[in-house]
C-alpha cells in the first residue's frame, strides 16, 4: 500500500503544512534509504571491477595463458596461476571429502539421535565453533596437528598407502607435517561447523508427519534418514555443502599456516604447496614490482570469480528449500 493511497483515503482534511511536511520527509527518508541500498550495491560491484583493473597489467602481459602457466618467478617476472589454483582446488577437495561425511554424521546425530536435552547445547556449541576465528585453526594446525601428523600419521601413510602401486605417488616423500594434506584436514575441521549448521537446518524442514509415518511403518532410524530425510532435503544439502566449499576455497589464515608455501605442483599430497589465498597473504606486502602485484591481484580475481560462482549456486539451492518450507 503506498503512502499516496493512504492519504487520499483519509477524508479528514489535514492542514496543508502538516501534509507537505509529511510528504517531504517521506520522500527524504525513502530516497536516503534507497541511496544507501545503491551505495552498498555499487560498493560490492566495485570489488570485482577493482580487481579487474588491478590485474589488468598481468592480464595484458600474460594473456589467458596465465590460467594454465605453472611458472612463478618473481626475479624473471614470469607468473602463472596454475600452481595456486591447483593448491586451492586440491585442499578444498580434501576438505570436502573429509568434512562432508563428518558434518553429515553430526547433523544426523543432532536431528535424529541425540536426547532432547542435548540438542540445544550441541546446536549452540556448533554455532559458536563456527564463529571461532580461522587464525586459531591455523595456529593449532601449525603447533599441534602438524607435529603430531609428522610423527605419527605420515610415516604410517608412507609405509602403507605409499607402497601401493598406482596411488603410492600420492603419499610419497618425506614426512614434513605441513603440506597439502594437512591444510585439507585443517580446512575440513574448520568447515565442519558451517556445513553441519546448514544441514541441520534443512533437516529440520522435513515435516515431522513424514518421518512419523516412516517410523509408524516400522522403519529404522537409518531407513528414515536415508529414504525420507535425505531425499526430501537433497537440494538443501547440496547448497550447504557448496556453502562450505565456498568457505574452504577462500579460507586464508587456516591454510597459510600449514600449507608450506611452495610454488610447485607435486603428485604427493604430503608435499608443501600453495593456494591462491595463502600466496596473497604471504607475498603481497613483499611484492616489489608492479607486475608482481598485478599478478597477485589477478589471482585474487580468479579466486573471487570461483567463490562467487560456488556461493551463488549454494544460495540459489538454499533459497529453493526455503521457498518449499515456507509453503
Amino acid at each position, binding site marked *: *500500500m503506498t503512502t499516496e493511497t493512504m492519504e487520499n483515503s483519509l477524508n479528514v482534511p489535514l492542514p496543508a503544512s502538516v501534509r507537505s511536511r*509529511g510528504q517531504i520527509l517521506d520522500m527524504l527518508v*525513502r530516497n536516503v534509504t534507497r541511496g544507501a541500498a*545503491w551505495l552498498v550495491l555499487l560498493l560490492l560491484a566495485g570489488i570485482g571491477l577493482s580487481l579487474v583493473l588491478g590485474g589488468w597489467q598481468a592480464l595484458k602481459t600474460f594473456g589467458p595463458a596465465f590460467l594454465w602457466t605453472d611458472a612463478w618467478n618473481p626475479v624473471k617476472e614470469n607468473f602463472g596461476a596454475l600452481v595456486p589454483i591447483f593448491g586451492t582446488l586440491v585442499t578444498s577437495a580434501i576438505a570436502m571429502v573429509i568434512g562432508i561425511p563428518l558434518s553429515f*554424521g553430526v547433523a544426523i546425530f543432532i536431528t535424529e539421535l541425540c536426547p532432547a536435552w542435548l540438542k540445544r547445547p550441541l546446536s549452540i556449541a556448533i554455532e559458536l565453533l563456527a564463529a571461532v576465528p580461522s587464525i586459531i585453526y591455523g*595456529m593449532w594446525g601449525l603447533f599441534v596437528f602438524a607435529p603430531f601428523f609428522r610423527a605419527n600419521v605420515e610415516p604410517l601413510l608412507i609405509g602403507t598407502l605409499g607402497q601401493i602401486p598406482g596411488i603410492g605417488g600420492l603419499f610419497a616423500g618425506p614426512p614434513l607435517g605441513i603440506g597439502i594434506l594437512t591444510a585439507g584436514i585443517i580446512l575440513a575441521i574448520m568447515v565442519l561447523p558451517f556445513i553441519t549448521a546448514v544441514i541441520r537446518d534443512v533437516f529440520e524442514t522435513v515435516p515431522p508427519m513424514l518421518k512419523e509415518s516412516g517410523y509408524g511403518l516400522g522403519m529404522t532410524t537409518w531407513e528414515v534418514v536415508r529414504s525420507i530425510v535425505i531425499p526430501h532435503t537433497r537440494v538443501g544439502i547440496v547448497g550447504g555443502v557448496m556453502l562450505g566449499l565456498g568457505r574452504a576455497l*577462500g579460507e586464508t589464515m587456516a591454510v597459510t*599456516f600449514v600449507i608450506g608455501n611452495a610454488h610447485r605442483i607435486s603428485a604427493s599430497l604430503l608435499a608443501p604447496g600453495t593456494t591462491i589465498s595463502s600466496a596473497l597473504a604471504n607475498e603481497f606486502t613483499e611484492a616489489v614490482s608492479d607486475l608482481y602485484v598485478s599478478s597477485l591481484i589477478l589471482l585474487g580475481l580468479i579466486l573471487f570469480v570461483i567463490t562467487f560462482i560456488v556461493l551463488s549456486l549454494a544460495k540459489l539451492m538454499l533459497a529453493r528449500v526455503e521457498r518449499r518450507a515456507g509453503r
Partner: protein
Amino acid sequence: MDVALYRSRKAKDKFAKTACFITVTIGLGALVLILWTLLSNGFASLGLYLFTENTPPPGSIGGLANAIVGSLIMTILGTVIATPIAILAGTYLAEFGRHSVVSSVTRFICDVLLSAPSIVIGLFVYQLVVVPMGHFSALAGSLALAIIVIPVVLRTTENMLSLVPPGLREAAFGLGAPHWKVVTSVSLRAARQGMITGVLLAIARISGETAPLLFTALNNQFWSTDLNAPMANLPVVIFQFAVSPYDDWRSLAWAGALLITISVLGLNILARVLVGDAAKQR
C-alpha cells in the same frame, strides 16, 4: 516374518548409528582439542603486562597493548562507518523497495559476500585506498572491516524488520501516520533488539579477521593511534608472532589468540542472550 531381512536391517541401523557417534566424537573432539590447546597455551602467558606493554622486538619482554588498542580502534571505526549505511539500506530493502530490482540484487550479492573470501576485500581496499594514498593506514583497515560488516548488519536488519507484525504497521497507517513515521517509530523500534544482535555478531566477525588487514592496516611495532599510519592489530600480530622462531613471540601469539577468541565467543553469547530475551517478550 523374514528373520534374516529383519536382522540385516537392524544391523545396518546399528552400523549407521555407530558411524554417527564416531563422526560426532571425531568432529567435536577435534574442536574441543583446539579450544583446549588455546586455553592452556593462552592462560599460561596471560598477565597484566599484556595490556600495559607494547609488542616487543625479538628477545625482549613485552605485551600486546598497542595491538589491543589498534584492534579496538579499527573494529569500532569499521562498525561505526558500516552500521548506519547497512541499517539504512536494510530499511529500504524491507520497507520501501521490498520487491524492487535493486533490492533483490543487493540481497543476493550481500548473501554471497557473507561467505566470500575476506582476503579479496583486503585487495579491494588496497586498490581503493592504499594505492591512492601511497601508504598503508589504519583508515584503510577500518574500511576493509566496514565492508565485511555491511552484509551482516544489512541482512539482519532486513530480516528483523520483516518479522515485525504487519498489524503494527497497519495500525500506525490507520492513525494517519506518514510512511517515514511508521518506519522510524514503529518498524525500526520494534526491530531494535534484533538489529543490535546483528551489530554484535558483525563485531564478533571482524574482531578475528586477519586476511583483510594484511594489506590495509599492515602492522606497527610501536604505539600509534594515527589513523593515517599503519596500526598494530591483534590478528596480524598473532600471525606474525606465531610463525616466528622466537618463543616469547609465540607465547604472546597464544595470549592474543585467547583474547580474540574470548571476545568473539563472548559477543556471540551476548547476542544469543539478547535474542532469547526478545523472544520471551513476544
